């Protein structure tokens, strides 16, 4: 399988702030990939570099085998709307709909029209007066109607109501099935969106912490909870990402898979073990100290 995105040890510093540190990852062509991490983890910086709107301080990032920066043929294959995208002051919806196809050779008027209608985007109000949800809606129109071979969706749900989110999922999947492309989507609403993804990437403090197929992610960590003594005993010499305690109760989220032996041992000590859900995994890595081990799985070229 070829990769739509190939990032080789890129770093990006803003002054003394290290936004990205030695990131290496690839996204296979045709994947719908979830990009997760806390605020400030580096999600938008990665997308900006992929979209050619920023350059890494070191390392290189390729999209469809080319460097995107100032490369118009590659840029025409990429759609990226920032979560805080600005528009000219006097712009209304129709200005955007008129100008967007010039940057998107595969633009679908039908997809745009269906989304504008379904998301109830106001036509008469200037975009600068849009609410947060309405700004997200217009970003979704541009992201999906572009039908770009690499579609970068940065926090597409911000402020969006639940009906609109469902409509977005439906249209994304429907249009993806008819016109396959590579999608990278960042969001904090993990539980709601996780079934969309075939790959997941978790970054924290500018580093890749998890990069694997969606199905492998359920085996990456487990949580032991129960009496504090039992949990401490069971988690000895294990890589603990996150602990939570109240009174005599304790839970610990630990990397790896729980062996049958450990599950039995837990049961005799009155503790329970469950595999960490994707939201739990993301939360655990977000709480973790920086020096821990990297988990990386899945065949890539």
């Amino acid at each position, binding site marked *: 399988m070829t990769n739509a995105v190939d990032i080789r040890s890129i770093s990006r510093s803003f002054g003394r702030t290290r936004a990205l540190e030695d990131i290496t990852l690839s996204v296979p062509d045709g994947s719908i990939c979830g990009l997760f991490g806390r605020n400030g983890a580096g999600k938008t910086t990665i997308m900006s570099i992929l979209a050619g709107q920023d350059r890494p301080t070191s390392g290189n990032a390729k999209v469809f085998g080319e460097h995107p920066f100032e490369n118009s043929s590659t840029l025409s294959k990429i759609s990226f709307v920032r979560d805080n995208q600005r528009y000219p002051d006097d712009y209304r919806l129709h200005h955007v709909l008129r100008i967007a196809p010039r940057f998107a050779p595969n633009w679908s008027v039908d997809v745009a029209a269906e989304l504008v209608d379904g998301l109830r985007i106001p036509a008469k109000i200037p975009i600068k007066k849009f609410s947060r949800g309405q700004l997200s809606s217009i970003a979704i129109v541009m992201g999906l109607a572009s039908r770009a071979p690499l579609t970068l969706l940065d926090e597409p749900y911000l402020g969006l109501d639940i009906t609109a989110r469902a409509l977005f999922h*439906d249209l994304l999947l429907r249009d993806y*099935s008819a016109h396959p492309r590579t999608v990278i989507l960042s969001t904090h609403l993990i539980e709601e969106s996780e*079934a969309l993804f075939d790959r997941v990437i978790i970054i924290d403090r500018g580093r890749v912490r998890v990069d694997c197929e969606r199905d492998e992610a359920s085996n990456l960590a487990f949580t032991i909870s129960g009496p504090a003594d039992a949990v401490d005993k069971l988690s000895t010499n294990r890589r603990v990402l996150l602990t939570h305690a109240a009174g005599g109760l304790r839970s610990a989220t630990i990397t790896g898979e729980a062996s049958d032996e450990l599950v039995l041992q837990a049961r005799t000590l009155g503790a329970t073990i469950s595999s960490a859900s994707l939201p739990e995994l993301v939360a655990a890595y977000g709480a973790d100290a920086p020096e821990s081990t990297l988990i990386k799985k899945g065949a890539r070229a």
Partner: protein
Amino acid sequence: MFTNEGPIFQQLAAMIADGIVNGTYLEETAVPSATDFAAFHRMNPATASKGVNTLVDLGVLYKKRGVGMFVASGAREILRAQRRDEFRKKYLQPLLRETAVLGITTGKLHSMIDDEGQDPR
């Protein structure tokens, strides 16, 4: 729709298998396509295909070229046999663990099962 237990493609396969065992999808009739399942459950199309193909590999579904996915004859029995194997682990063992916790004796459990069996459904 999907839980945290096990990969999503297996959960979809289990959902379709449930439909076959309980008679929603009859043998030699069509089931929705992977694309339909993906759209309905709002899930990744590749994951949906993987789920459907799990059942193809089991001989439960088969593909009619240009028409779609069909339930194979004998599919229901294949799935029922598989579930009988799982019955002990999935139902009996947890049941016995719980009776031990509650202090229900084996004799009491037997009579409870007999009583429950006599209740008209």
